[in-house]
């Protein structure tokens, strides 16, 4: 900590002296510590702001307050299955999506194919958790901008999804549901109806959210033309997910590198168009999430209609031992591209698991977006890239 402070001090510009009223007034840049205990850093992120008055000269994110040695833990598991609950705890607002990627990675390593029913249920769960994750992102973003009420409305709708999850697997936040080769339990008999009922319930509330927040004049003032991330910069930083699509890049792994049964479903990829300002500003990133929720509802309705009958567990041995080898699997989680690099040495436990987390990568673009903005804008920009510290730090 002392080292970083020392380097920051050396980065500050020399104090300026300004002539005024017959004497010299000294002005210099100031270091402000934002977090790890701060209402808007979405967890335990610490930002070191170098400010000139209210204008931000530079932002230095300090991460690691929630580091839990996830990758090291994985190497010490007695089997591949035990990793699943740990995977849940990375991006804890969209745990299903994390499990999805891990399950695909290990199944690819084993070279097995899971029953079609499993694929559809997994897609439904992943899309539901996309809606949950975006609801949290939108609600907390409203709070960052100063609007409290949309957050509670988002939480209300989120409850309905959590109820569906609870009926399927008993847990509301960390599910341990997608096991290798299948699912922990089959879904209840009325699962498809419940999902469709949710879709019917949820559609009008997206409009309500738009009326309340998205097209609010003050909200647009605060987010349009703020924190612009040009497409080229976004690609160079490796930004993915809604933050990348907000910059106008049409890149979604569900379309560009389809996995599971996404190629059998009909949906669109919303991208930022700069309707209220510049392409790639905070409003675009925010709006991509709203449109993605609409598309997720479309996917849910189709998947619930197509949901085939069958088994929910592929025939695999209780204790799996993949052949020695390695695999890299990437999936589109609500936050972006989540990659699992799994190496097997032929034993029952993974030799190495490396995770490429979208929040971690997206966070790295924060300084580039924030320079020259105001302190209030840093809060808006941080909220618009939607990070979860559990996944940044792992």
């Amino acid at each position, binding site marked *: 900590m002392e080292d970083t402070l020392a380097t920051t001090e050396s980065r500050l510009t020399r104090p300026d002296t300004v002539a005024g009223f017959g004497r010299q007034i000294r002005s210099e840049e100031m270091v402000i510590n934002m977090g790890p205990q701060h209402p808007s850093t979405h967890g335990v992120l610490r930002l070191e702001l170098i400010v000139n008055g209210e204008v931000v000269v530079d932002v230095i994110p300090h991460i690691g307050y929630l580091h839990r040695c996830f990758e090291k833990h994985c190497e010490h598991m007695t089997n591949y299955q035990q990793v699943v609950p740990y995977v849940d705890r990375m991006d804890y607002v969209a745990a299903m999506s994390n499990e999805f990627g891990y399950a695909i990675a290990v199944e690819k390593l084993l070279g097995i194919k899971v029953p079609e029913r499993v694929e559809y249920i997994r897609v439904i769960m992943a899309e539901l958790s996309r809606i949950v994750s975006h609801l949290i992102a939108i609600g907390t973003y409203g709070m960052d901008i100063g*609007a409290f*009420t949309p957050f*509670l409305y988002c939480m209300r709708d989120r409850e309905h999804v959590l109820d569906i999850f609870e009926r399927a697997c008993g847990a509301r936040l960390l599910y341990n549901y997608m096991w290798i080769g299948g699912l922990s339990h089959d879904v209840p008999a009325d699962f498809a109806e419940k999902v469709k009922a949710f879709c019917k319930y949820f559609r009008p509330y997206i409009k309500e959210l738009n009326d309340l927040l998205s097209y609010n004049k*003050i909200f647009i003032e*605060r987010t349009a033309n703020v924190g612009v991330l040009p497409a080229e910069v976004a690609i160079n930083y490796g930004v993915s997910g809604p933050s990348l699509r907000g910059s106008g890049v049409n890149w979604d792994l569900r379309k560009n590198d389809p996995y599971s049964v996404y190629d059998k479903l009909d949906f669109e990829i919303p991208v930022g168009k700069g309707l209220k300002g510049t392409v790639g500003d905070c409003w675009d990133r925010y709006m991509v999430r709203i449109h993605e929720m609409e598309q997720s509802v479309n996917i849910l309705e189709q998947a619930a209609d197509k949901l085939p009958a069958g088994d929910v567990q592929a025939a695999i041995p209780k204790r799996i031992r993949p052949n020695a080898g390695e695999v890299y699997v990437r999936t589109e989680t609500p936050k972006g591209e989540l990659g699992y690099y799994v190496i097997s040495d032929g034993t029952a436990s993974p030799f190495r698991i490396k995770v490429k987390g979208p929040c971690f990568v997206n966070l790295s673009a924060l300084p580039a977006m924030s320079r020259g903005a105001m302190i209030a804008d840093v809060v808006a920009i941080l909220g618009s890239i939607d990070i979860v510290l559990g996944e940044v730090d792992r």
Partner: protein
Amino acid sequence: MKETLISLLQNEILVYVLMAIVPLLWVIPFALFAVWWERKISAHMQDRLGPMRTGGWHGWSQTIADILKLIQKEDIIPSAADKKLFVLAPYVVFAGAYAAYAVIPFSAAYIGSEINVGLFYFLSISSVVVIGLLMAGWASNNKWSLLGALRSAAQIVSYEIPVAVSLLAVIMVSGTFDLQQINQMQSGWFWNWFMFQKFPFLLLALVIYFVASLAETNRTPFDIPEAESELVGGYHTEYGGMRFALLFLSEYANMFAVSAIATTLFLGGWNSPFGEFLSGPWWGALWFLGKGMLFIFVQMWLRWTLPRLRVDQLMYVGWKVLIPFSFLIVIGVGFWVMLAR
């Protein structure tokens, strides 16, 4: 009321003290009620219930419990703080907020001090609050507090101009600064209220005054000095216990003061809306408080609906929107008054 009391008690000083205490008898219960009310309003706007347990019926005694808790808290002064200023600041803020009540005509029978420059006094005394806020922010020796204090100073100073100019429009119609006289001019039915006079100029003046007063009292969408999601707590980040309670109390006192001025100048003050129906000093006080609470409700309603502006956008709204329009209103009313004479 003053004369009656003097003849009754035969002691002038005692009477002045009593007169000074009367607004406090309103402000403290009001603040207790308003905090609870705001929590209930926000809760019902947000699909929640809010406090439901303390005291039984809808958690009515929640704020009383909160205040009792705050009183019992340890009095912490940060070791790096400027102790004298830190201790003094909440009192300066409260004194500024409370002093404004001296000229508020609660009823035909009661006004703390019937001076003929009442409105002028109100505008100037409410600026004292800024000094207290700056003291609090500076003395805390916390960068967030300092930013909050500087924001609030810039904000309150710039928004005083539209407030003053929009009130000027009323002064041009009434021809007096005396708030009690302004009230008497609006007696009769509700169309005599200044809000409906010189239509639509004074109605617009009310809107401008109300918007600017939101900024004066640091309410959403202009609550940037204490923007929770940016500055943690703004100037009161380092305050706790009773000192925090005092800052909080002054905030609510200020809220009612600006609402009371809006009521007096635009909504007929203590006049009954229906001529002689339910008029008189006691009913008048109720009408006055009721109209004031209406503005308080709108303030709360806005708070739980709107996001917050950024500091430069706030200055834009103040200087480039509210001030030009308030000048236009003054010019319009001025011509009207001149031509109608």
